[in-house]
């Protein structure tokens, strides 16, 4: 059975081939989160069990397969990864095989955990990166999106990482309009510098108008779709799905964005998912137009 048969698609949607499986994502926190941000494109919340935590044993099985495919880097997201009681053990197993990045909301980064993370980082040959999400450089801009009181708690997490000797990447979505301008970015840098972080790191991501964000900021319109011929020479290498896959507790999805679309599930093992994928979802339009990569 071909992938086309598995995912019947409208004829107009272009298909992206998997060039190489460089980046493997794990939906390690499922869709469970201690926050319920109004712009969460995965609609995570404390009660959202669409995807459950991944167990260490499951992660190991995929890591085995990933090494045979020469995966270059591992990313962990959710939901909130550190709600998963096995998260640190999962990181340790992963860091024996390659570099890892954890996307976190920063709320569970107490000093003891940060010290343990630093230990993990020091014990491996490979890079460990923490990415902490914020949606404003003050409580006034951040808290309406992430929840009351979160700004201070996020900063405390960032400070704990910094004090443990880890320099996180601060991730901001374009819900924060200023983050798209140089002067807005400078405000984030200034905030981090006041915390003693001399080399602040920032990543700005566009919003995907799906999940909770569709309600907050508006859903996609019907013209926001990709069509054959949108990419010059049919080359879709700039899309992360040409080099990534996403593992959840229910199998392997094409990318970290479409985990709440059962149609974007590609198979049970990585070997099942080495074929092409049809870019029929409106979120694909954002990836293409903004050149998005969720990698750091």
């Amino acid at each position, binding site marked *: *059975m071909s*992938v086309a048969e*598995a*995912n019947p698609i409208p004829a107009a949607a272009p298909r992206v081939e998997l060039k190489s*499986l*460089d980046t493997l994502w794990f939906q390690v926190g499922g*869709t469970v989160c201690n926050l*319920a941000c*109004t712009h969460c494109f*995965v*609609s995570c*919340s404390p*009660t*959202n*069990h*669409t995807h459950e935590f991944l167990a260490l044993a499951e992660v190991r099985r995929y890591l085995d*397969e*990933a090494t*045979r*495919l*020469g*995966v*270059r*880097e591992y990313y962990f997201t959710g939901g909130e990864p550190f709600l998963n009681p096995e998260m640190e053990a999962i990181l340790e197993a992963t860091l024996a*095989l*390659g*570099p890892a990045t954890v996307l976190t909301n920063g709320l569970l980064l107490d000093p003891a955990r940060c010290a343990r993370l630093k230990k993990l*980082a020091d014990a491996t*040959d*490979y*890079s*460990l*990166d923490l990415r902490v999400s914020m949606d404003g450089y003050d409580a006034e801009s951040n808290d*309406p999106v992430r929840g*009351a009181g979160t700004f201070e708690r996020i900063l405390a997490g960032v400070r704990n990482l910094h004090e443990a*000797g880890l*320099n996180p990447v601060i991730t901001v979505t374009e819900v924060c309009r200023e983050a798209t301008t*140089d002067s807005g970015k400078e405000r984030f840098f200034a905030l981090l510098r006041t915390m003693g972080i001399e*080399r602040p790191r920032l990543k700005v991501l566009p919003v995907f108008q*799906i*999940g909770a964000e569709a*309600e907050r900021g508006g*859903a996609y319109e019907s013209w926001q779709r990709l069509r054959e011929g949108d990419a010059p020479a049919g080359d879709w290498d700039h899309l992360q799905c040409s080099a990534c896959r996403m593992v959840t507790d*229910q*199998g*392997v999805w094409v990318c970290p964005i479409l985990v*709440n*679309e*059962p*149609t974007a*599930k*590609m*198979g*049970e*093992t990585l*070997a*099942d*998912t*080495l*074929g092409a994928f049809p870019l029929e979802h409106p979120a694909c339009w954002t990836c293409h137009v903004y050149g998005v990569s969720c990698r750091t």
Partner: protein
Amino acid sequence: MSEKLIAPLTVHRGLATWGEKLVPLAAFRQAAAETGLRLTQREREAALRAYRKATADSTPVEGPYSRIAVFGGVYSNHLALAEVLEEAARRGAEAIYCLGDLGAFGPSPEKVRPLLSHGGVLAIQGNYEESLASGREDCNCGYTDPRDNHFAEISYRYTAQSCSPGFKAWMGTLPRRRRVRVGNRELLLVHGSPRRVNEFLFHSTSPAPFLEVLLDQNRCDGILCTHTGLHWQRRLPSGRDVVNVGVIGRPANDGNTHVWFAMLEAREKDGLGVELLPLRYDHSGLAAEMRREGLPEEFVETVLTGWWTTCLEILPARERAASRF
């Protein structure tokens, strides 16, 4: 807490989010279970094997040699280039290879040309040569940080203006990869990686399993590369080697002013001997020349202190942590 934030805290009880719809959990799980491929065990093994299979490559194999010298990233540092050629000869290199990026950063790019030809250096194209030879507007370094881009632009423009058309045309004739036999090992020489001229292979982001697959896909016993500016080597579980030879154009961001190159030799016991070697040169002479040419003081500082002041954004967490800036 606003009303808006209280709603989602309970809204998902027993329900799944399917796109923007709420559906019973079981409905989502069943739809997911029914979607996608489910290959047989045998098909899976075949898919994994096919993925690792080597692609055809008609690059001729040079050698065999018993000892070669390899360096990358000259960055117009003709003083270090003269030094490395002497050092290679002293160490008995039978051939000398350069992995590209002849220009940028340093002064007077034309000065490296006679040294390369007199030294009989066998070179490949880096992203710099590709860009210069094809008249590109930028160096294709792939920086995203505006400050990195600013300095990359300055050095690219300077090199593009001070390079003769003849030199640029010659760069365009260089191969993009070479295969070289050292003893019984066939080594693939590339600039960034075998996949892309501007792919960064850093030590902390090039895990052994990834490199093993890259070697399989390119059917070789070792890969020699540069482009990151930082030297490292990894002996893989299969006994094969990947060596980033570093650059001779600027120091390795470790507070030392020397630069790095590699010697590779055939060995009875373990097949390939790899030595990464520091190289001293007249760095204050280079700094003086750079100032005369009006190059940015940030670059001069790097030459004099051994710490990078630009292009730091490309460094992975581990390499960045060891960095001063």
